[in-house]
């Protein structure tokens, strides 16, 4: 070799049809050579001559590089720092085949070569639908007008509730259809009729789904005389927060201060989620990115365990915890939460999508496994850990933990609230307030997290 050596790696060279030789691969700017221990040059090649370059990882950083040259000669090199050498050659390899991302890219590239431009609907310019938007706005205003009863009073007529609901639904559907047709970019392969059908179905279903929740909120805002009115109404006439203030009064009278329940729940939710996230993603990282004996079996077991409900394992779990002396401590709630199978499962599924090249690149730079996990894998699976967080928070917030914790000072908020809810008819209003408080927290958490998930999903997409 007649240039300065930039990188070298000890290893074994094997050429089909001859014996293996131990030595060292020396890499320069434009060419490389394999030198045996006596200093004889066994193989030398210029990067210009390479037709194919393949890299097979053998665990750790050692790997086998297979080089195929112009004259059909192929040789394998089993190298200590094979990945580094591979990426070095790859970097200086001048006529490496260009990677084609998708068939569309390829077609577009060919069209570009021919000097044409392919028009796909995704790249078509936006069409403005100004009039439709104005129409939708006018209808929406009319709807509000109708609902406020001004029109009905002016013209002295009254519509039945069912009819009003129908009108409202229909009008909302029209508005959405109009808005839908005026989206900046229409997707390809979508017929307008189909879109309208979908919007209508979505609206009807959304109303049905939301009705019980809206009803619950309405109940909690009703004063006592409206709670038992016939016919019952969805929305309160004179909304009041009295139920909620009653709730606080009732809470204040309880034996253990309210703040203690709150602290318990927040503490359990926070620690449980954080621990679960850390442990599950550590396990998921190795399960997703390394192939080691037992890994697949373990994951299979986790997938099966997804189907077990808490009731099925309830009693033996109690026995085990009492043997470990964890009954009536926070550990009884936290440790099982750490080991929830759902987090590991989701994490692993998301991490499989991470490009292996990313991790290999970090290996080349000399990063250890933990560093790779912490500073490369974790930031890149943000959507996954937000999702796992939601599930964990949701299940921990809802634990009433009545079986494993018996001292009142360690009970959770939901448990305390359920005790109030069990108060019967006299506490109907307060019970409704409890329902709202218990349900609103996970929903709000979800709303906050969801916007972040959508954001991270949109901006942090990694393509292999």
């Amino acid at each position: 070799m007649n240039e300065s050596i930039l990188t070298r790696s000890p290893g074994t060279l094997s050429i089909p049809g001859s014996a293996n030789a131990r030595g060292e691969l020396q890499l320069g700017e434009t060419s490389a050579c394999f030198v045996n221990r006596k200093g004889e040059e066994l193989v030398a090649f210029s990067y210009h001559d390479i037709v194919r370059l393949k890299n097979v990882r053998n665990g750790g950083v050692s790997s086998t590089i297979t080089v195929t040259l112009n004259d059909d000669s192929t040789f394998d090199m089993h190298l200590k720092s094979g990945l580094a050498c591979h990426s070095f050659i790859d970097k200086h390899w001048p006529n490496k085949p260009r990677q084609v991302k998708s068939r569309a890219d390829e077609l577009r590239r060919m069209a570009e070569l021919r000097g044409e431009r392919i028009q796909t609907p995704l790249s078509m310019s936006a069409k403005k639908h100004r009039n439709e938007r104005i129409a939708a706005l006018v209808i929406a205003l009319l709807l509000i007008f109708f609902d406020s009863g001004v029109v009905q009073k002016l013209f002295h007529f009254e519509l039945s509730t069912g009819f009003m609901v129908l009108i409202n639904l229909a009008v909302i559907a029209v508005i959405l259809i109009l808005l839908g047709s005026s989206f900046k970019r229409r997707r390809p392969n979508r017929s307008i009729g189909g879109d309208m059908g979908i919007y209508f179905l979505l609206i009807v279903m959304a109303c049905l789904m939301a009705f019980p929740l809206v009803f619950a909120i309405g109940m909690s805002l009703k004063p006592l005389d409206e709670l038992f009115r016939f016919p019952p109404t969805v929305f309160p006439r004179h909304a009041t927060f009295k139920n909620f203030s009653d709730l606080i009064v009732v809470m204040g009278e309880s034996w253990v201060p309210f703040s203690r329940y709150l602290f318990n729940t927040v503490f359990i939710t926070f620690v449980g989620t954080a621990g679960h996230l850390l442990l599950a993603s550590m396990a998921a990282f190795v399960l997703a990115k390394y192939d080691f004996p037992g890994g697949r079996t373990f994951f299979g077991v986790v997938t099966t365990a997804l189907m077990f409900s808490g009731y099925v394992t309830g009693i033996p779990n109690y026995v085990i915890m009492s043997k470990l002396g964890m009954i009536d401590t926070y550990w009884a709630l936290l440790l099982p939460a750490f080991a929830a199978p759902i987090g590991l499962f989701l994490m692993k599924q998301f991490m499989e999508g991470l490009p292996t090249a990313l991790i290999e690149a970090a290996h080349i730079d000399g990063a250890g496994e933990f560093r790779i996990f912490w500073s490369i894998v974790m930031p890149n699976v943000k959507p996954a850990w937000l999702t796992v967080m939601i599930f964990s928070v949701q299940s921990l917030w809802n634990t009433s933990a009545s079986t494993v914790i018996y001292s009142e000072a360690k009970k959770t908020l939901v448990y305390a609230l359920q005790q109030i809810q069990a108060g019967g008819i006299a506490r109907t209003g307060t019970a409704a307030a409890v329902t709202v408080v218990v349900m609103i927290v996970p929903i709000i958490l979800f709303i906050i997290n969801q916007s972040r998930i959508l954001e991270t999903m949109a901006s942090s997409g990694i393509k292999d």
Partner: protein
Amino acid sequence: MQSSSLLKKYASIKQQKISYNWNKAKRMKICYLFLAPYAILFFTFLILPICTSIYYSFTSYNILEKPVFQGFKNYINLVLQDEVFLIAVKNTFVIAVITGPIGYLLSFMFAWFINELPKWVRAVAVVVFYAPSIAANAYSIFLIIFRGDAYGYLNSLLLNLGLISAPNLWLSNPQYIMPVIIIVMLWMSMGTGFLSFIASFQGIDKSMYEAGYVDGVRNRWQELYHITLPSMKPMLLFAAVMSITTAFNVSDVPRMLAGYPSTDYAARTVVTHLFDYGFSRFEMGYASAIATFLFIVMILCKKAISNALMKVGT
């Protein structure tokens, strides 16, 4: 003579395999280090209880005294003598067969529809559809909607419209209990599976659709079958597992709505039956037999579904 040499060969291959795996395992020590904290907890709080539960199912055990081994007696009693168990199995299967597949299809369908919406509408829609299943025990509001007197929302609506002349006892009349439970279960069926569908829809590479368009995909159904479904297979299976789990483990909803025990055991499910024996009568051996039965049924179900999903999009 020949068979013994074959046996020897098999043994040596096996040995080689073991030593190969052992060497590999030694080389990848760090992986086990990463896995260990989770694996230990997982074993202690999920695998160990499951194994003990299977063991208890062959014994007579009431927590206070030591378990006494009695073979298959629990299982025989379960099938031959326990009439309530058969009602529970029937109810569970009715609920599972209706809410499982329908809930699964609904959550896929709505995730797909919602994915078509512009960003901000999508955000709102996801919350509206997902809220029922995340909102703790919000289903208790159905106690008021389906209340048996005229103050119940459904009753008063039907009375007002003149469809019924006297209020219906939705939650005590065995005739109505199951439909009500199924409706509530469907209302809550947009759960974890739904969310993972939404996430995976957004994770699909947009250039695949572009490529599909260039290649001649002409409507949304073709796009769904040829591009979307094959790229979200893992999520499909996951959501299926989740919907099996919720469908077979149904117990909170019937207990809250129909009472515990319910009229004529009309809302008795396998898990409420288990609850009855385990936590009220403390016949742990018997309860464990019920749990084991449920577990086996769910595993078989999952096997069948994963086999079916293998064929999707191919």
